């Protein structure tokens, strides 16, 4: 089920009301059933895949906790391999086969392997990582195995974060399903505010600019550098609004029932370094990679060269996590390279001073520069192939000219409509932080009446100016 659908408009209040009407002992059942229903709106039979991974990791968790030494490690490895195998088959098998066939052709071999005719289950990478974090935490002794199969299933399947995160940790979630949550006006109000802001970002900003972005990337060959630059900047805003919008809706929906999900975005484009960017962008994934890959690989505890190699590996793997395509790997690797360069620059005092400065103007210039590097990465992320991404970047850097005011590729969009969308984006960029702070409760300065007016106005704006066609969230494909 999509958050931006009529079905969710009925589903959400129904689940919320039922949750507080039911006695605590039955709430998990209702939430689990609702989560199954939510997931089955996509491809119903794929719930069986989810069920298999749940059963494997549930049993593995119990056995890991009961065992010691080598046996304990074997259970962990078996669990990780079987969970990752599902991910491999559905997400990466065809990628490897395609590359195998291409390599065979290149080497003059006639051997060809067939692709699997399957669709990627929605959000598979997200719940796979959430399951993996459970078995690893049980293995490390940071979390006791969950004895209740229903509660464990809910930990993997909790509908707000089931298909696109935040990727939660068992320490943060499992105890919450055992707790009794009483109805609270504060939770309802702050949850709804977050949801409204999330919907605004998704259906008003991200979806409304998607057609401009699509046109710029689809017709990049005929467009001048101004349009390519506009398309790339707008994609940076689109992906931020799309994904952080989803996270806000998820966190807000959970909060209305008294659940606290982890923060996933914190004003990422204000980052003054790439390292800072990754502490603000998709926080639940970057901390996952930090805790379960980077630190076990040695993190920054070994030589500087090894630290840089670890960074490069982790970010390349992170890129591959996003999608079975070289463009994602390059995007991840590029960020790895950025971080290595930053590490090298730390040897210079001017860079150290820059990182610690409190000067607003220097920070602003720094954020603008970092944003340019992030946008270069987004071009690889969005382009259908690495060669197209390279060609687009080349056209931007060589300032390729164009004679038409509004290229044919964008002729379906009326100039007034285009201006309206760009004004909306500009207003959003100006107000995002202030409204986010109010929605998340970080800023309590606004009076109750002002908040009521602000969020009811935003709701009306969403209803009227939201894009209400069938548009999925970008991160669903991962």
């Amino acid at each position, binding site marked *: 089920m999509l958050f931006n659908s*009529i079905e969710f408009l009925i589903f959400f209040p129904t689940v919320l009301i039922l949750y507080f009407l039911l006695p605590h002992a039955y709430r998990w059942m209702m939430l689990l059933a609702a989560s199954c229903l939510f997931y089955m709106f996509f491809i119903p039979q794929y719930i069986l895949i989810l069920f298999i991974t749940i059963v494997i990791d549930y049993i593995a968790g119990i056995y890991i906790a009961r065992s010691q030494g080598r046996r304990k490690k074997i259970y962990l490895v078996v669990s990780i391999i079987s969970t990752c195998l599902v991910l491999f088959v559905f997400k990466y098998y065809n990628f490897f086969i395609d590359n195998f066939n291409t390599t065979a052709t290149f080497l003059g071999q006639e051997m060809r392997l067939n692709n699997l005719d399957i669709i990627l289950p929605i959000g598979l990478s997200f719940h796979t990582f959430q399951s993996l974090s459970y078995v690893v935490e049980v293995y490390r002794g940071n979390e006791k195995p969950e004895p209740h199969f229903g509660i464990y299933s809910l930990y993997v399947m909790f509908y707000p974060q089931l298909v696109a995160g935040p990727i939660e940790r068992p320490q943060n979630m499992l105890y919450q399903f055992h707790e009794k949550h009483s*109805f609270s*006006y504060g939770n*309802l*109000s702050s949850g709804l505010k977050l949801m409204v802001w999330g919907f605004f970002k998704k259906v008003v900003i991200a979806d409304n600019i998607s057609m401009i972005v699509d046109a710029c990337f689809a017709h990049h060959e005929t467009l001048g550098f101004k349009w390519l630059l506009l398309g790339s900047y707008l994609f940076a805003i689109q992906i931020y609004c799309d994904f952080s919008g989803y996270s806000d809706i998820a966190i807000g929906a959970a909060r209305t029932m008294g659940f606290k999900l982890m923060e996933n975005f914190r004003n990422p484009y204000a980052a003054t370094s790439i390292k800072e960017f990754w502490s603000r962008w998709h926080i639940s994934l970057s901390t996952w990679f930090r805790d379960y890959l980077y630190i076990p690989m040695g993190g920054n505890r070994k030589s500087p060269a090894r630290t840089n190699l670890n960074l490069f590996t982790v970010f390349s793997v992170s890129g591959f996590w996003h999608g079975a395509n070289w463009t994602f790997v390059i995007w991840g690797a590029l960020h790895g390279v950025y971080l290595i360069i930053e590490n090298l620059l730390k040897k210079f005092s001017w860079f150290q001073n820059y990182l610690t400065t409190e000067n607003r103007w220097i920070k602003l210039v720094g954020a603008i520069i970092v944003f340019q590097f992030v946008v270069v990465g987004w071009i690889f992320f969005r382009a259908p192939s690495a060669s197209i991404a390279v060609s687009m970047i080349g056209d931007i850097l060589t300032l390729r000219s164009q004679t038409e005011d509004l290229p044919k590729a964008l002729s379906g969009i*009326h100039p*007034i*409509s285009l201006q*309206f969308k760009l004004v909306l984006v500009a207003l959003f960029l100006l107000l995002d932080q202030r409204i986010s702070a109010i929605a998340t409760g970080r800023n309590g300065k606004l009076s109750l009446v002002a908040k*009521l*007016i602000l*969020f*009811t*106005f935003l*709701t*009306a*704006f969403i*209803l*009227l*100016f*939201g894009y*209400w*066609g069938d548009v999925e969230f970008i991160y669903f494909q991962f």
Partner: protein
Amino acid sequence: MKTTLVRLAQATLLVAVFYLGMVAISSTVYSDNRRLICYFLPYIQRVGGQESLMLADYSAAQPYEAIVIGSSHAYRGYDPRIFEAANIRLFNAGSSSQNTLVSRALTEHILQPSAQQLYLIDVYDKVWSGDGIESCNRLIQNSTSNAFSLDLAFYPLDLRKINQYSTWLFSNTTVKEVQAKDYVLLGYCSQQDTLTEAPKALDAPETINPLFEEQLERVMELLDAAGASYVFVSHPQPVTQGMKTYHAPLKKIVENIAKEKNTFYLDYTLDGRFADYRYFADANHLNQQGVDLFNTILIKDLKEKKPELLDRFQTSQ
């Protein structure tokens, strides 16, 4: 709990006020003879056009003996003047991208069928798929009946239709934002262009939307209840690659429905008599020359297939 309910009620009221305020402003401010909302929301349909003239014409010259319902294939494919020459008073109630959902609302609220009437239900392959938003919104915007607009706007629920309905409430219907230059009379539009080369292959229709099947059933129930007769017709199309493959299963569906309802289906989609592109204005529609030939063949076939359907019109003159 009481505080929560009071606050939710206050919030809902404020949302409604802001929403209607924004609709009112963007629906009454014009730029270049078009309301601002039409620029902001591409799915909002404009005032005027074929639907506006068709709805106005319908009430003016009743009663009709035969009525066509369907998409642009219908309103560009059945010329009331040719039927008039054969002593059949025909009204063309086709509208752009009309699917069975719209046909049902149109039949129920506007056409209101009566006994002795013959309905020609024009079906083409894509009538079973798509969301039908454009079709609904064009009629909502140009409707003069609140019940009809409400029906289209709220069933099934879709915010794009509700936004169109709200826009309609504030619209100034005397300002025509779009003209129908090729409108002739009684819902019919004529095209004079001629296709000069083979059209591009059209996309195969998507999977059948069960709602549209259900709505066709409702249309037939309404016609049965009124004692009206109906036949299914598919008008000729320039044959493109893949069409033969995807048309066959869809044809079977209509044939089965016709058989079940004890009526018949006249399918001219791949008719060899229209193999020449000069009969078509574009990849989808007949031009006037094509309509002349198609309507003559259709009237002849109707008379042959079920003479009692048309003979009664002649005897009632």
